[in-house]
């Protein structure tokens, strides 16, 4: 990829990241952190990519380990965030 294109994507993503969370209330700090934590579990996508082209034992075992860790991060992250938010249910209308 052209480094300038990468830099552009990177810079714009920073601004989007700043913007979307700048008005979060204290109540949601923990679930938001946990949700963002689940999102970086997307490294699973990269782990599968490298596992798919691994041919040596070393590369295969490292990438399989990466897949296991990334899956725990992603799936566990979304589930635990949902559990936190479940407790806010039925409150939406009252606020």
């Amino acid at each position, binding site marked *: 990829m052209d480094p300038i294109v990468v830099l552009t994507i990177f810079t714009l993503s920073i601004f989007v990241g700043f913007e979307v969370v*700048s008005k*979060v209330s204290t109540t949601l700090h923990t679930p938001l952190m946990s*949700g*963002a934590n689940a*999102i*970086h579990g997307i490294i699973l996508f990269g782990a599968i990519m490298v596992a798919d082209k691994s041919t040596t034992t070393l590369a295969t075992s490292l990438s399989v380990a990466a897949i296991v*860790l990334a899956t725990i991060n992603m799936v566990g992250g979304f589930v635990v965030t*949902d559990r936190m938010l479940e*407790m806010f249910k039925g409150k939406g209308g009252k*606020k």
Partner: protein
Amino acid sequence: MNSTLYSLLGLAVAVSFIMALKGLSAPKTARRGNLIGAVGATVATVMVFFAPSKEAHHNTALIIGAIAFGVIVGVPAARKVQMTQMPQLVALFNGVGGGAAALVSIVEYLHAEGSSVGVAAKIATVFTVVVGSISFSGSVITFLKLQEIMTTRPVVFPGGRFVIAATLAGTLGTAVYLVGHYEKTTALLVLGFLSLAFGILFVLPVGGADVPIVISLLNAFTGLTVAAGGYVLDSTLLIVAGTLVGASGTILTRLMAAAMGRSLFGTLFGAFTAKPQAATGAAEARPVKSASPDDVAILLNYAQRVVIVPGFGLAVAQAQHTVRELADLLAAKGVDVAYGIHPVAGRMPGHMNVLLAEANVPYEQLVEMDEVNPTFPQTDVVLVVGANDVVNPAAKTTPGCPIYGMPILDVAQAGNVIFLKRSMRPGFAGIENELLYDAKTSLLFGDAKESLTKVVNALKNL
């Protein structure tokens, strides 16, 4: 899969993550936002199997098996964890994500032919290995601290600063060497180990109260690691998703630090400035006033206004339902009841809100610190349930103590203060609380849930 379609799907996933973060920042849309993110992540995981590629696929069965294994480990952990242990679980999930990102870059580096790796890709690889490893080992230490497997106090040893500085210098030196040379084995291994060591040394001197900030910071680190991994793998999706988490995580860390009255810099570089503290003098046996559940019930019964200040002890005792019962009972008797919520009460910002929401406490009874503080002079009784540091006046009066400068709930302004405590042990930050010895303070010792149940029963019999 057609490569245009593949790229468009990747774009859709990136958008779903933006919508997820946006949704998560407002109470009404939070749960839906999380769901949108989960759907996006699932789409990404499936589509990668159909990546447009001329090369043969390898290890497909192994990959699916590894995902299944990860699900089997991750889901039950997330479902079964107690509310009190949520923070350390999030820390662990974050750590394994950082570890995964470091492994991914290492594998990609192993695949590459020496001459074909550009300088930018080498920098990105080295960055991923360093920051991913720091995130991994640092998160493990935060887990051990929060689980109280190791001490929650800052761990500082003589010469610690120099050890940390040397580790950092070694890490940076190896990193620079690897950018200049292509070497698959030794140097990469050394880099990984040095980074892991630095992660441990970096978190050890952080005091208990600052741990949530560090978790949030490491979360942002992992995001950036994933973004750098995306550059190594030539994946726009990873770059966007990782950067989003890195940026939003940084903002979140700053917001948390602000809520605790900490400078981010101070927390971050505490490792370099912390000095070994002389052990504080043996705790002298000073008289405290203890109260029986009946005394507390009477005091509450004749109060006009009661503020309940919940803390980690409430979470430990799982007393959120009992405290609600007490509040309802008082409200039925015409007492004005509110909960004074300190932003960092518990082990994570917003911990108390989540806990009390579970017990269906009406949202409008939860009053944030800035709003509740001016009302304390008109408050007859403050019931502190398992909180300590967030009401400790030392934050105002004792310069140099670990929580100095943190905004606190001014409960000393109220007519009476009742502490529900298990023992005289100081709070998470490990500082003595002068308020316990104050004339208007009484203490009801015991498990918060049992004490509250006794008070509720006494109140019913009045």
